[in-house]
């Protein structure tokens, strides 16, 4: 592919291919509109306020193709112990694999199929939550594969839905998922992004989650792609009354990671816990970009975003909270904590509180620094050597983001975190 072609036209062939696939006319028309908007807007640049700290130049420099991965071996993962409902996407295409028999009240199928068969909830919510920002349009135009999960009211899906997203050198293929949880239903979604090889690839995934009345969803994204990968993810959720949404973003790989998370309170009395952890090394750049929209009264949101940075790594936290007029009794808290373990590491923090209602509780705090010398000395004065004391403090700092994740997932992620940090300390 010729990199002289501007980025916005570089995907014309892919666009022609995805629109040629059999699909409802409205869907190909919507792809066309999205693609036109994307081409018109172009990629965001640091001149855009939402992209002030994050440059997509690396994305623009490289050529990307949509190609099939050959000989994909399915790596065993830590999540196997959960016997999840597993779906594997290699370079954006689902691999044929048996989804185990589904419990009654649970619908799981390719998103394209759900739209073609006009599943009402799929039609109602598809594309409604993710916004119309250029990269959302990019995905809406070009998404290649993805899943639709619908859970009937009062049904608990005990097994997590586990989506393994494997990238391949030079490859891209946007993924699109939609989850609709009926009233009082419960589910766990795990999105696990990996690299199938050492070459750079471009992962683009958008997921939309709709939580009905009092529904509960735990949504974990684990990103451990190779150090050259580019990863743009966008998750949007709509919270029905009294629903509870737990989101955890663990970012431990990639050269450039941008996670957009958009939360909209649609019914009163809902709550969410949004946690994120960046483990940055080398020259990695990781941007956690959060928008919580308290559109109705009585919502509770808790944000905790942390980063641990080595080398010349950089993290960005942009946490925007909007409390709409009339959204009284909103309780929104936000904290950003960054641990710099190298003098060349950098963390940027940008809280944005936009409060248009009275009788609300909102707070935010941000702190960036190194390990606390008093804590370090205390542990050493108890006989722990310096390296051990440091490792213990780093892990304690990082593991706080796992609070609120329940067993059996919690011990698996604790173990994962320990292994990641141990590998780093040994490096």
């Amino acid at each position, binding site marked *: 592919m010729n990199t002289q072609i501007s980025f916005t036209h570089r995907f014309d062939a892919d666009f022609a291919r995805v629109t040629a696939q059999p699909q409802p006319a409205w869907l190909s028309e919507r792809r066309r509109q999205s693609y036109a908007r994307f081409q018109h807007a172009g990629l965001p640049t640091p001149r855009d306020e939402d992209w002030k700290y994050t440059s997509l130049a690396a994305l623009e420099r490289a050529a990307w193709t949509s190609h099939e991965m050959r000989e994909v071996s399915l790596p065993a993962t830590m999540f196997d112990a959960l016997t999840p409902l597993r779906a594997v996407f290699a370079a954006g295409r689902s691999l044929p694999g048996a989804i185990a028999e589904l419990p009654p009240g649970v619908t799981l199928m390719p998103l394209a199929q759900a739209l073609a068969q006009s599943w009402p909830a799929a039609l109602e919510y598809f594309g409604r939550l993710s916004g119309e920002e250029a990269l959302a349009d990019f995905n809406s135009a070009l998404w290649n594969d993805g899943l639709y999960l619908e859970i009937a009211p009062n049904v608990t899906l005990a097994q997590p839905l586990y989506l393994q997203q494997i990238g391949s050198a030079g490859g891209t293929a946007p993924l699109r998922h939609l989850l609709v949880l009926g009233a009082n239903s419960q589910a766990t979604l795990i999105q696990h992004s990996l690299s199938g090889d050492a070459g750079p690839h471009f992962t683009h995934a958008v997921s939309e989650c709709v939580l009905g009345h009092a529904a509960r969803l735990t949504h974990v994204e684990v990103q451990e792609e190779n150090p050259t990968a580019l990863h743009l993810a966008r998750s949007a959720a709509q919270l029905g009354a009294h629903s509870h949404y737990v989101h955890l973003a663990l970012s431990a790989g990639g050269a450039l990671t941008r996670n957009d998370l958009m939360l909209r309170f649609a019914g009163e009395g809902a709550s969410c816990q949004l946690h994120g952890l960046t483990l940055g090394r080398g020259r990695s750049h990781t941007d956690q970009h959060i928008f919580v929209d308290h559109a109705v009264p009585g919502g509770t949101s808790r944000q905790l975003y942390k980063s641990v940075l080595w080398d010349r790594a950089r993290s960005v936290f942009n946490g925007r909270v909007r409390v709409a007029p009339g959204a009284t009794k909103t309780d929104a808290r936000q904290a950003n904590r960054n641990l710099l373990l190298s003098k060349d590491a950098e963390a940027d923090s940008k809280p944005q509180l936009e409060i248009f209602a009275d009788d609300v509780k909102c707070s935010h705090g941000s702190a960036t620094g190194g390990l606390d*010398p008093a804590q370090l000395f205390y542990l050493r*004065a*108890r*006989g722990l050597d310096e390296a051990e004391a440091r490792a213990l403090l780093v892990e304690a700092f990082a593991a706080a983001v796992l609070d609120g994740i329940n067993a059996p997932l919690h011990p698996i992620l604790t173990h994962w975190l320990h292994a990641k940090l141990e590998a780093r300390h040994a490096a």
Partner: protein
Amino acid sequence: MLYINNLHVAVEGKPILRGIDLFLRGGEVHAIMGPNGSGKSTLALALAGREGYVVTAGSVNFMGQDLLAMPPEQRARAGLFLAFQYPVEVPGVANVQLLKSALNARRVQAGLPELDAMDFLALVKHNLKQLDLDESLLYRGVNEGFSGGEKKRNEILQMLMLAPSLAILDETDSGLDIDALKIVAAGVNRLRGPEHAILLITHYQRLLDYIRPDRVHVLDNGRIVRSGGPELAHKLEESGYGWLDDEPQPIIPGEEMRP
């Protein structure tokens, strides 16, 4: 056990300790008293190896080793324990985890095998009971959200677990009510024995009603200006520290000065 010879310590370039001489034998309990700012805590932290406490002259020999050449963790493993005046909160590190790591670091140093989980738990439960501490404190972050009294008792818990050769208690009595003080004192008295020396740093004589020292030293302006028996503490209690200035005395090296 501990032989401090002409110790000078500066903090941020400012001389704080200006020639400390002190000798502790195994089995002895010495108290160091003195007004605020006299250098008591500086002595404790310098002995424990806190960064920024710069030894500008003098030497410290601990059980035949050059203490000042050792990093803090080596001092701890060799049997020196500091009960902190302000115990540090370490959220996310479970109290029990620190106790286990600390104990095993010391055992490995002593050529002993690590304690198995059952024996460890039995030992820690026994000590918790002695200190009237709730077992739930084991599973919380180190000192995280502990009350002032719980923090001080947690220091004593660590001390009893580690059974140090030399325990330095830096104002462990401050902020304790009388019941907590008695519990802490009972804990310290349990450590007493020929294998253990104890250095009590305190502003008040009150603690010494429950832990009877063999020697009392008065620290003022970075020097030991008086040394004597337990009666010296009583005199300080009655008359305060002011009389020290009125009665200048040459420092008479007592028997504690001899190595």
